[in-house]
């Protein structure tokens, strides 16, 4: 860990100002501190936002929910409103990390956690995300956990969050704040950048832009599932995960919100897949077509080739369960 300055932010604007001047936000620190110990990240200054008043979960006028950026993963997962109306989010949170980590990890921090690509964490290996231009050791290396969608020749990292996958399926938006007090709302799907030729740039956030909250739209019709497929029963990142919200009426699918984890550099959602399903009668053939469409562009890199058939099997299984339950 390199020596760094530390300051506690007095207000959100103060935090944004310090960050605009080069400081890195720290909230739960469950990922950042590891990265700093490894010197994969070496901020010259940290601005601690833990004491800001961003830890409320509030009901919005439109029936939605506004989740403060500092709400811990545990508190969010256990919130009775979330459990009742947005259960896919609760389940996704509880599928992630461990009890200890969830107690410390925050909503904003979860969104901004870095990839778990093994090569990103090992400074003796090439990584365009860590050291732009150095190359990608993962492409021809041990890439079991890495992406098959949305990759580039420069980076095949995945975004590791479970929470963000559920939020993507729910149509969440991120509310940010800048030092001048201005705010903006960013649909979660637009928050993340695909790697392209700059995998070191991961989000559209500007230097100093603070995530203040995540908003969920009002609850929607339909059953909700978060299915996480992983290498062990707990404390493992998703190989493939599916957050699904499906409504069925008179035998036809009237809504299909589907977001995927473990497959891509961001929580993945494909509107064409949802369109294909919507209005159709449930059938394995239909689900297979949806999987074909989802994975049409998928590309494996050897050790992660299996994710393509696994994603297909998982999606079909989730759709079967959602459509059965919903029609029951």
């Amino acid at each position, binding site marked *: 860990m390199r020596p760094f300055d530390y300051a506690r932010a007095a207000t959100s604007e103060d935090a944004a100002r310090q960050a605009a001047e080069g400081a890195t936000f720290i909230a739960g620190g469950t990922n950042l501190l590891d990265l700093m110990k490894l010197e994969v990240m070496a901020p010259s200054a940290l601005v601690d936002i833990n004491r800001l008043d961003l830890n409320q979960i509030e009901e919005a006028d439109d029936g939605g929910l506004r989740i403060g950026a500092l709400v811990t993963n545990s508190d969010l997962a256990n919130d009775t409103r979330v459990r009742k109306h947005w259960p896919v989010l609760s389940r996704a949170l509880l599928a992630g990390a461990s009890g200890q980590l969830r107690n410390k990890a925050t909503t904003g921090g979860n969104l901004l956690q870095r990839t778990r690509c093994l090569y990103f964490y090992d400074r003796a290996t090439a990584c365009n995300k860590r050291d732009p231009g150095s190359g990608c050791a993962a492409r021809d*290396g041990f890439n079991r956990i890495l992406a098959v969608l949305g990759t580039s020749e420069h980076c095949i990292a995945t975004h590791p969050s479970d929470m963000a996958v559920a939020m993507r399926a729910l149509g969440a938006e991120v509310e940010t704040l800048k030092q001048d007090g201005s705010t903006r709302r960013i649909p979660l799907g637009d928050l993340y950048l695909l790697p392209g030729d700059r995998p070191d740039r991961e989000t559209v956030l500007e230097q100093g832009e603070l995530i203040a909250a995540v908003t969920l739209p009002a609850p929607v019709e339909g059953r909700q599932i978060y299915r996480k497929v992983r290498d062990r029963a707990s404390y493992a990142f998703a190989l493939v995960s599916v957050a699904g919200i499906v409504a069925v009426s008179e035998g036809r699918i009237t809504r299909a919100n589907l977001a995927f984890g473990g497959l891509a550099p961001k929580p993945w959602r494909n509107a064409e897949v949802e369109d294909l399903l919507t209005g159709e009668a449930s059938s394995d053939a239909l689900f297979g077509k949806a999987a074909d469409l989802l994975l049409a562009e998928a590309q494996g890199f050897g050790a992660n080739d299996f994710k393509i058939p696994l994603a297909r099997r998982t999606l079909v299984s989730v759709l079967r369960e959602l459509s059965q339950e919903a029609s029951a």
Partner: protein
Amino acid sequence: MTEHFKMDAPATDRRLDDMAQGLVGAPLDRPEGPLKVSGTATYADEWQVDGLAHGVLVRAPGNSGRVVLANRNAVARMDGVLAVIDDDRLLRNPAQGTANEAPIQGPHHAAYMGQLIAVVVAESFEQARHAAQSLEVTLEGGTLMPVDPTTAAVEPQESKNLDQGDLDAAMETAAHSVDAIYTTPSHSSTPMEPHASIATWEGDDLTLRGSYQMLKYNRNELADALGIHPDRVRILSPYVGGGFGSKLGLAPEAVAASIAAKQVGRPVSVALQRPQVFEATMRRSETSQRVRLAADAEGRLTGLGHDALVSNLPGETFAEPILQASHFLYAGANRRMSMDLARVHRLCAGSVRAPGEAVGVTALENAMDELAHEIGIDPVELRRRNIPEKDPESGKDYSSRRFREALDSGAEAFGWADRPGVKERREGEWLIGYGMASAARVNVLMESQARVTLLPDGRARVETDMTDIGTGTYAILGQIAGEMLGLPRDAVDVVLGDTALPPASGSGGSWGASSSGTSVYVACQAIRRQLAERLGGEEADLTLKDGSATFDNQTRPLAEILDGDEIVKLAHLQPGDTSDAVRQATFGAYFAEVAVHAASGETRVRRMHGSFAAGRILNAKTARSQCLGGMTFGIGMALTEELAFDPRDGHVANHNLAEYHIAVNADVPQLTVELLEERDDWANPMQAKGIGELGICGAAAAITNAIFNATGVRVRDYPATLDKVIAGM
């Protein structure tokens, strides 16, 4: 005066059964347990030492070439830095268990990526770590060396080969046969307590607070590495936070701390970082095993072949002893076995819990399951039919062997009769299967010494450099002494983990409790004789219980008999003729139920049972715990555990506990353990055999056999991760 005891003849007197205190075998708690769970047991790196400086080791970034520390001078000038050391004596890799001398030394040429080639010493740990991370290490003249054992140069291990009868002919004429290749990946011990040492010099005398399993060897290894006399070295390891083989031999941090402490003239602590534990301690070799089984129409084996490929670094002689139990577990007149050792530039291969049997029995037990399926008979029955009368190679008798009872009793306890047919049982999206496997592990007695003092107040003290690596040594040695001397457990103090004390066997190879325990037993026998002498009678007529001696119908407190004296006995156990006169081994059977998800191929173990026979059980609780731990290891081996080597430079890509998947709580269901009553007269005077590793010797096969029962998919390439399962579905 030293009591010498050599195990040359079976011990038929069963003295422990005659004792009155009732401690041996009882499921007593570990006396140090409360210290450990309350954080007050002092582990190696936790000692408060005045003037302590901190060292952090630096890794080689590739697997060959001359090591150049490009900016060492700049690093040496960084804040707090006291020294940048690349002394010739730094270890290339750890010493193998019982090596008793230094392993290959020298940090100037890289042999594997992750090799620890320098230590940076600073005032604080944080300064040392930052400086170590700032050191630019380059490798000059290096090329990528072979890292893949399937294509690397191979050295046949001819002394390990066996050719008995004609296996090829047996395979040709067999009514049923199996010829399959099983592969297992490398595993890491990665104990919860990382390898750590604090070195303190007083003049030319070195005290090392370390975390080691076999102190008498470690002392000699450290002295040899440093070029000093062993008398100058004292090692303290009162508590060891797990070893699993990785702390058998001296590791790089001990030498680095010792050299650094001498150089900076202050005590120095060096602890391996978690990635370094994965990259620079010991791995279990990956294995490729061809198993051939030939059987007649009734499933009686006529031939058994086992050919293994393992690997190690150039210059290391250890070869994972895959075939150890294949020699004696099953019948079959025609037998062929062989071992090849591939030379690869991966980290050093050495002992990881149950070297040999953990993976060797697993492959054999998969093959037996395949054979049972081929023949169409119950896998338990196939084992029953192939229990040899005598050792199938040497013709020797077995010392004791309740293998058949373990199979039968285990099957009964588990409800094996309810086993579904292949792909027959389904609950929703989960496919349900049962599997079983045999357990077998060689039994070994090692030289060991202990001193027992019966104090004037009637308490006793046991002293030996034996270690407790979480296995229960403190408890067991106290139980043995208490039993023999008629003292409550808390009237016995057990002092361990100090090379100033009599040298013991150390903890390893499942021999610790029986070897060090026997030395305590022998010392106590001598004390009993002296007490009897004081009372004017024979030891055999003496009853000791609750601090009193009963002799000739008179009961007197020990303190009164001692009359202010103490009785001190040093015992020296040596293995003898019984080691070779018979085949000594432990046996058992595992039963597992799994659920495999029909869509994702994820396997969850639903329940698992083990029945084991290992001679006299010295402490039913610690023995059971060892079996639970072994079976838990087995779950990891079956489903998740694998050191993932980068295919180009051979470094451990998943060098942390997030990505090296040991079983977590959610992976481990209700486990049940049955310990069968047994006495092994040939093992030692306590009739106890080792049980520390038996729980893992085949456990994984019970699970993969259950996966086959559930799905019809044979995963022969461990671990049985979901991708391999769905590939066959």
